[in-house]
């Protein structure tokens, strides 16, 4: 998997980040909206991929931790007037703590039983969000979640002319960028290598001295915490939190994003998130049969690009390069 030296020298992630930072100056409220959506869900999909692509665990309930993060931050900010920074931190810790609690049960089972347990716990989280009216707002959710105070951005020279939504987008971009940087560092660490070894062969991993369950649980907690981080950002972006955030269909959506982009690459799920959101926007403009189109896309994907869009492009480029060298 050695990239062309030239291609490797170009810091693609930084370029994409800088390009994304220019979106508010395109002037359209809609573009900023889309870009915020993509940035947050890209992080959610990447956090799921720590389990899916790196540890080899298929979670059907990742949205639960997204929902826990969203609700925690929104409730703290709206009902208790807590600052955004503290809300975000608490949301991340709460999601990680719930992942630790639920994950401790989930990793005791393997394969399909693991997946079913993640789904079961996610449904419990959803049911709590749906029914605990006094705290979560029940079916109606919580609306009018306040924006963090970003007034200071207006006094800055270049950013002053932008709308509040643009300011929040820039904040999201920085926080998501930060999370991506940490996540990338984690997958390239000895801890990340350990997870990959477990994915490849849990039995052998156990016999080189790795406590497989404990590391699976650690991956589950880290993935949950990042999902909570993304959820907190999303609740504010959405100006409200709803039980849908933790619903199983949301978990499925994230799973589709990750697989669509390619779970074999760090950036694959992020690309998948962007593609799915943009496709959804485009197709909804023409037809109301989005689920049908999504189904067709999935079928094509599984048969034609099993390694995802990012995987297909990546191996295509490699083949091209080898051709040129030959």
């Amino acid at each position: 998997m050695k990239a062309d030296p030239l291609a490797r020298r170009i810091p693609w992630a930084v370029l994409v980040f800088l390009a994304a930072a220019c979106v508010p100056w395109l002037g359209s409220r809609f573009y900023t909206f889309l870009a915020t959506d993509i940035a947050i869900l890209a992080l959610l999909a990447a956090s799921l991929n720590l389990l899916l692509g790196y540890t080899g665990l298929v979670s059907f309930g990742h949205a639960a931790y997204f929902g826990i993060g969203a609700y925690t931050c929104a409730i703290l900010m709206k009902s208790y007037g807590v600052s955004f920074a503290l809300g975000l931190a608490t949301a991340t810790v709460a999601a990680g703590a719930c992942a630790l609690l639920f994950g401790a049960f989930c990793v005791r089972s393997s394969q399909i039983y693991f997946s079913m347990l993640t789904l079961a716990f996610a449904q419990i989280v959803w049911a709590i969000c749906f029914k605990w009216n006094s705290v979560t707002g029940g079916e109606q959710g919580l609306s009018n979640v306040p924006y963090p105070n970003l007034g200071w951005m207006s006094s800055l020279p270049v950013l002053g002319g932008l709308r509040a939504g643009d300011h929040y987008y820039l904040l999201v971009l920085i926080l998501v960028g930060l999370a991506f940087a940490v996540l990338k560092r984690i997958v390239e660490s000895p801890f990340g290598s350990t997870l990959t070894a477990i994915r490849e062969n849990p039995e052998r991993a156990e016999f080189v001295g790795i406590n497989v369950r404990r590391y699976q649980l650690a991956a589950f907690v880290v993935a949950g915490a990042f999902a909570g981080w993304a959820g907190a950002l999303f609740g504010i972006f959405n100006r409200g939190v709803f039980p849908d955030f933790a619903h199983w269909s949301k978990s499925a959506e994230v799973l589709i994003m990750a697989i669509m982009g390619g779970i074999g690459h760090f950036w694959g799920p992020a690309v998948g998130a962007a593609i799915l959101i943009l496709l959804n926007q485009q197709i909804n403009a023409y037809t109301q049969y989005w689920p049908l189109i999504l189904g067709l896309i999935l079928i094509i994907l599984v048969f034609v690009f099993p390694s995802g869009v990012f995987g297909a492009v990546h191996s295509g480029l490699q083949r091209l390069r080898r051709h040129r060298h030959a």
Partner: protein
Amino acid sequence: MLSARDIRKSFNGFAAVAGVSLDVPAHGITAVIGPNGAGKSTLFNLLTGHLRPDSGSVAFEGRDITGTAPYAICRMGIGRSFQHTNIFRKLTVFENVRAALIAHAGQSHNFWGRSAQLYGAETAQILNSLGLSDQADTVADSLSHGNQKQLELGIALASNPKLLLLDEPTAGMSATETREAIRLLERIVIERKLTLLFTEHDMDVVFSIAQKIAVLHQGRLIAEGSAMEVRANREVRRVYLGERQ
């Protein structure tokens, strides 16, 4: 060094290992032989914590390790290989060994360091001693069968074990490959001052390197001793000759 006391294991009423007591002396090469289905692999799995015995106990360097989890047994200094090659298939040869080194060094929880900068020299040294240096960047899955077996040995060595348990180290190899593999194994055991316990179906291999041989038949040990003693044992001759002719 390793001693099993009357260990038993049944599967659905079938006694795969029916009361085996075995001592593996330190710094020697011990072989467990026996016809197919004699219970060799089950015995191995009982000794390494992969299976828990129904009764009996296993001790390593005087400590009871019965029912201890495999990862903990590995950390005490017991490395093993499997009869069916058990490697990290989609990782490169280099990454396979490095993953084991990371685990052995207790670095698995280090989430902020960079794997790429760790244990390069140690990995290269192990690959070199196995003659796998040229294939360091090859994906393990695409190695030849013989090389995969060697890689698995490399993974086991990365934990720097005192006792190495190899389940059929030459299974599926040609006669030439087998000879080379055995020579390699002998050299490594001497270099690293290892204690080796292995199972084998090839009698030539066993008699050429093992100092102590235990013969397993239908879940029981029927003979134990040096190559000469085992060869002269009437019971062993009956079991083996009876099966072969």
